[in-house]
């Protein structure tokens, strides 16, 4: 799984790349959980074309972990296809979603 992790404005920004499906979601889950420490987490999906329910499940888990630690969680730069999956799963209202990293409130 291609990814990049940067610290921007006090947030840990995780840039994911490629399809997040049953093959890749175990790696994504591990990557997300490893990087939830003491700073708010932002997941950038600009280079993700596709996610499935297993990918969504890893985001749900990351969201819950952040809430448990009282840390912020946000998803940014969603492609129309990824947005559609969240809509079909009716989870589009559950995740805080923003256009880009700069739009995430401090």
């Amino acid at each position, binding site marked *: 799984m291609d990814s990049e992790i940067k610290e921007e404005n006090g947030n840990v920004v995780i840039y994911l790349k490629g399809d997040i*499906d049953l*093959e890749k979601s175990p790696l994504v889950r591990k990557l997300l959980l490893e990087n939830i420490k003491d700073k708010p987490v932002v997941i950038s999906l600009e280079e993700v074309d596709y996610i*499935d*329910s*297993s990918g969504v*499940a890893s985001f749900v888990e990351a969201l819950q972990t952040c809430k448990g630690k009282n840390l912020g969680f946000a998803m940014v730069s969603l492609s129309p296809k990824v947005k559609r*999956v969240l809509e*079909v*799963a*009716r989870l589009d209202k559950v995740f805080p979603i923003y256009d880009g990293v700069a739009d995430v409130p401090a």
Partner: protein
Amino acid sequence: MTDPTEVIDTSMESTATDGQNIAAADIRSSEIGDAFSLVADLAAAFSSTLDIQTTLEKGLERIVDFLQAEAGSLWLLDEDENLVICEASVGGESSINGVSLPRGEGIVGHCIEEDECKVVLDVSKDPDFTQKVDEDSSFITRSILCAPMEISGQPIGAVQVLNHKSEDRCFKSDDIHLLQMLASSAALAISNMRMASALADAETVKRELALAAEIQRDLLPTPLTDDFPVMGINIPARTVSGDLYGFLINHLGQIAFCIGDVSGKGINASLLMAKTLSLFHCLAKYMDRPADLLKMLNDEIAESVSRGMFVTMVAGIYDPETGRVCLSNAGHEPPLLRLAEGRYAMLNAGAMPLGILPKMDFQEMEFYLPDSSLYLVTDGVTEAKDESGEELELKGLQKIIDANISDKFTDTLRAITADISKLELRDDLTLLGVDFPDRELTRKGRVLLDLKVMAEPENLKFIRQAVEQTLLRENMVSELVATDIVLAVDEACQNIIRHGYGDDHKGSLVLEMELLDESTPTLSILLRDEAPRMDPEIIAQHLEKRSLDEVAPGGLGLHIIHQVMDICKHLEDECGEKFGNAFQMLKALEAVK
């Protein structure tokens, strides 16, 4: 080389104690002239022929004659065997050619090891003298003059002359200078002949390689007709190649094809290439399952090939009648499928290469995806480097393919090859293309897509791409609806992989997409597996539509399927007794805008 004057002085000292005398130096100018003309003659004789044996005999004869000796012999060092072997001999009753002494033994042995001339005036008083050669040749040696031969400071042997013909049978001090000069001349001749012979050998090898390359090129097939859907191109990095491709029409009228890469380069790889390709041609005529063919090839190669060599290969069958393709991959680069609208699906690598372990099973994937084309390459293509030193990889290959698409498939392949040839190639370059042309079928009650893969997570992406390509090329649904259907199919396949097969079972997954001939055009997606048969009661519970609040963890997939599809059903009649399930999803297309 040691100064001969010094040596003869020492020898004179040592022999003086024996009360013997060596004749005083008495060099007449005519003799020097004769000696130089002999050296010149010898050099001419040595350079005129490559027959080392005859040349040495003749040269030695003249040396023996000139130094007025009764006999002479020329010895060469055999480094491998640690022996000194007589290569030429004159005088004596019988030839001693071929007689050998352990390295360092005898006067000749000492002469070579110590790299200095030896003068022995009475062999009976020299402890280094060995009787062995006299016994072999019925010759009685009394005195010896022996000079070492070397090439570029490395000892190669020695020339010795025996028994001066004068009454005292003693050699004169000039004789040693002369012999040394003649030995140098002989050494040079031997060196030249060895180099010439090595060159001749290299030339022979080169000629034979060129012949092998020609035969190898003839093994690679050319398209059978002008519009034949399969074409291959091979450019070897050296004369011969370890890459292979093949295609033919099998007993059912289908097209069998393959591409392969033998580990290593050079003649050994090319021999295994020839064997593998010949076996493929033999077997593919009568076998219609690529996985079975690879299994047979693997057993044969594993049994007979020297350790460490192996072959990566993709074998496939394309049926022009039905448009179906079946592929099996033994550790080769993933085949690249170019879908309509220029998108690509990478079909995964599968099992290990041929020749490593016998009795292996290979997996197959099948699909019906008209209006697409398959590109198979060897790593010589993906590892080719551009100007900045970056490897091409499959991504770069896609760009080259896109830039060269033309109406005629053979033109496309030629143009792609021309572009790849411009890169820095370090390995054999082989490309095989298979074209699956568009098909005209009746509008209703027809199969739109049909594929069979192993139920593994790494095949999900291909399934998604195949479903999406089919929906879009048929213009049946909007892009958004296509996204939804792809998602639902993916979720259903996931359930089969995760819950149907679980960790304990492995097997295939078949997907059939059909447009049903009903009053409302309805899309049917049927999934079949070989997993343990599901309990109908549990299925009934799962298939019941529920609100999201009731969705249990992990039940998100089913929720998505229900959101997208109109009807989901488990086809009881089509399930096996213990293994095998059939799951159908229906979606009325008119309802979709």
